[in-house]
């Protein structure tokens, strides 16, 4: 009978129930290391191999800066739009009733289910050069924002929905009985409770937008300094064999992703501070 990993603090469960979990933990960490950590380690190492005097020029070349700037601005815009639109959609899905609501609810997940390159293509079909409604935004920055809105749609909706569902309606009744009108109730009661979920969703949407590639690559035309986002820039650097340059910008994107992950964790902890 193998010994279980020693308990620390929390009530210990007899080994008879759990047996030897160390094998499972070993397998899990081994798989994670091989698949995720090792390649990322290689990336970070190789990007720094040339020393800071090759790293810095790589991420401060005009093309790189332009791409990073465009990416960040577009992502912020998209995050902001999602904060409003996502909350509104979640509200309609939770509080409103109409025929076909179930279908609409399922459709929200379409961007998760649809390949990104197909998403880009569908937007091109309606808003591109052969648009039946005469809107042609292909190869513009608007197109980038549109594509990012498509792929980030579910994030805020799906983080806000369960919170809205669980919201204690009695709080709103109490506020009403104390004289608050609807807008006031939203502002003082509902919104503060939704804020952590909205922020969480916004952070996820932002992280996704910053790294998005497939939906943007067709619709934006990848015009350097005009419509080239960071991920496409990295891709073109790889194709022209400037691996160092690609690696440098990638590490920057990696750091941004990591910071956002930490922020999401912090938001989650902050959100549950009032939980009984």
């Amino acid at each position: 009978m193998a010994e279980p990993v020693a308990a620390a603090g929390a009530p210990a469960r007899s080994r008879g129930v759990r047996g030897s979990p160390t094998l499972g933990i070993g397998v899990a960490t081994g798989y994670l290391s091989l698949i995720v950590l090792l390649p990322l380690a290689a990336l970070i190492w190789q990007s720094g191999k040339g020393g800071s005097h090759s790293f810095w020029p790589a991420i401060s070349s005009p093309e790189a800066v332009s791409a990073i700037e465009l990416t960040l601005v577009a992502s912020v815009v998209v995050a902001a739009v999602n904060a409003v639109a996502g909350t509104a959609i979640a509200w309609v899905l939770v509080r409103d009733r109409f025929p076909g609501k179930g279908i609409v609810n399922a459709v929200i997940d379409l961007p998760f289910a649809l390949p990104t390159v197909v998403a880009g293509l569908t937007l091109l079909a309606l808003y591109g050069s052969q648009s039946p409604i005469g809107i042609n935004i292909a190869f513009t920055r608007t197109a980038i924002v549109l594509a990012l809105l498509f792929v980030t749609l579910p994030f805020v909706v799906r983080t806000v929905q369960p919170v809205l569902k669980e919201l204690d309606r009695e709080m709103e009744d109490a506020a009403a009985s104390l004289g608050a009108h609807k807008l006031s109730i939203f502002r003082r009661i509902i919104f503060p409770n939704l804020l952590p979920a909205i922020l969480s969703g916004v952070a996820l949407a932002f992280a996704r937008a910053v790294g998005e590639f497939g939906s943007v690559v067709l619709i934006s035309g990848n015009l350097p300094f005009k419509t080239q986002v960071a991920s496409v820039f990295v891709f073109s650097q790889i194709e022209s064999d400037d691996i160092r340059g690609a690696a440098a910008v990638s590490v920057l994107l990696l750091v941004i992703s990591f910071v956002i992950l930490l922020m999401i964790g912090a938001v989650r902890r902050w959100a549950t501070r009032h939980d009984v």
Partner: protein
Amino acid sequence: MGIAVRDVSKRFGKFTALEAVSVDVPSGSLTALLGPSGSGKSTLLRVIAGLERPDTGEVILDGENVTGRPPQRRGVGFVFQHYAAFRHMTVYENVAFGLRVRRHPRREIRERVEELLHLVQLEGLAKRYPAQLSGGQRQRMGLARALAVDPSVLLLDEPFGALDARVRKELRRWLRRLHDETHTTTLIVTHDQEEAMDVADQIVLMNHGRVEQAGGPRDLYEEPANEFVMGFVGPVNRIGEAFIRPHDVELLLEPAGDCQEAMVERLVHLGFEVRVELVRGDGEQLSVQISRDEAERLELERGQIVYVRPLRQRVF
């Protein structure tokens, strides 16, 4: 035989749940592990079951030292406070589980399960899922499931704690009758002293991880080992160093013998008894319980001065 626990200690981090606890549960008896929250009674039960490992000490079941064994090999039946029902299985499959993992033949399983469902009065519900049962029904299922594998020892962890008062009373009486039929060594954890007194042959009263006293219900009530035991198993008054039960007090209109003066603050009519709440000169409160007839004879009213004489008292 039965259950023997020797010098068991268990700590969770800084918290000592059990401290050198030794208990003997006679074979075939129904023993209650009684105590307030945090007294260690559930932990002790789980150590006996093998669901927790003690830091020191031994557990001996039916003469065999099972301290190193996992729960699978101890022959214990365990009933959980919140039922631990297998949600995805029907009532039948829940009860049959222990027999299925031992690979008993299907016909034997069917007979045994039907016998048990009859015993716990859940016939006809075999195909239902736990979510479709009431709390009391789920717990009876839990009992049937534990009994299915013929355990030598039955352990119940606050089995009626999640049920409402009326169901609780019904089920504990029912459990006692079941025990009288099967004579399985049974150990039940409860924080409700009324439940323990009602149902058990022997009570082990615990506090802060230690055994305060073990004995029959009458022993604990009439010969409490210390202040804690006396106060836990029933209401108690304290006059100086002496501890006195509300029933063991005589009320007099004139002072006589060793008595104390007190004023009647409140009369609570409890059907055929009256609880007289008194306050002494020094502000100490007393609670005395007398029959309705006695209260009428004394013509008690609020504000009246009476004399309190203890008939029986204990000093520790």
